[in-house]
């Protein structure tokens, strides 16, 4: 079902527990996250091919989170200082049980301007396998129905 991003959520556990343990808590004052699951494509074009041909290589998982600076919420900056990866969970909408979770390294940025609330942002990159939790592909559902 299509859902609004208004109820999105970012959770972080600095201990890096997998599967996520009780240490996974919401990072507050964020209002945007973005993840990319791009897979490298290797060019295997050969003589006589009529167009370029690719095969998939390794998937990359990385992205960004952003929001407002809140001095009660230092998780992002503590994560940027951490030498070990933590567990990151990204939920598009907390009204359904769907999220992506995995180990990640974090970087943090802050942008403080005279004419607005200071904004924070962070970038993450995978430090281990990422999993997709919940959800069913419509195509797979159709296959199951047919079976």
């Amino acid at each position: 079902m299509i859902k609004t991003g208004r109820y999105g959520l970012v959770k972080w556990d600095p201990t890096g527990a997998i599967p996520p343990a009780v240490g996974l808590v919401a990072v507050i004052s964020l209002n945007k996250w973005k993840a990319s699951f791009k897979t490298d494509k290797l060019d295997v074009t050969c003589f006589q091919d009529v167009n370029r041909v690719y095969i998939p290589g390794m998937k990359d998982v990385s992205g960004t989170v952003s929001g407002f600076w809140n001095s009660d919420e230092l998780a992002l900056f503590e994560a940027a200082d951490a030498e070990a990866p933590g567990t990151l969970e990204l939920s598009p909408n907390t009204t359904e049980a769907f999220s992506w979770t995995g180990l990640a390294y974090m970087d943090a940025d802050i942008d403080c301007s005279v004419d607005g609330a200071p904004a924070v942002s962070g970038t993450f990159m995978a430090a281990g396998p990422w999993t997709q939790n919940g959800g069913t592909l419509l195509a797979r559902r159709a296959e199951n129905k047919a079976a």
Partner: protein
Amino acid sequence: MPSPPDSAAIGNALIGHLLADTELAGLMPDGVYRDVARAGKKQYVIVSLVDSVDQATYEGRAIESALYLVKAVALNNAAAVEAAAARIDQLIEDQFWPIAPGLDLMAASRVAPIGTVTELDAVDPDLRWTHRGGRYRLDVAVTYARTLAPLGLARGTDQNERVTP
């Protein structure tokens, strides 16, 4: 799910803040009014909401940025208007005052001055109304806690009891 605080409190608090100042009351004895003064008043302050923008986080409304026109208005008393406009600026620029539970003033600043404007009275052209003031932006943090009920993700009582205001 609790509702965010009533935004009207921001304007009400601004008006209350101006009304509480005895120096401004001496310059503008007819009071402070929202949008339009009562009939017959000749020396007063007008407060009008010009524009307002909300900014949200995943926990709900986080910041209200409200732009107010605040100006002194007087009949045949330009000197009082100029003094009152200066006092209004002292009372708002970089000042802080309480608004309401769940609404905390983060910053108050003028974004545009309104120089002295003189207009003739609509009935008697021998009478002159003078206006002066500015447009002030109030950035207000909304600190109410929305409950993320569907998955039990209540703010302030998160899974490891971490305090999330």
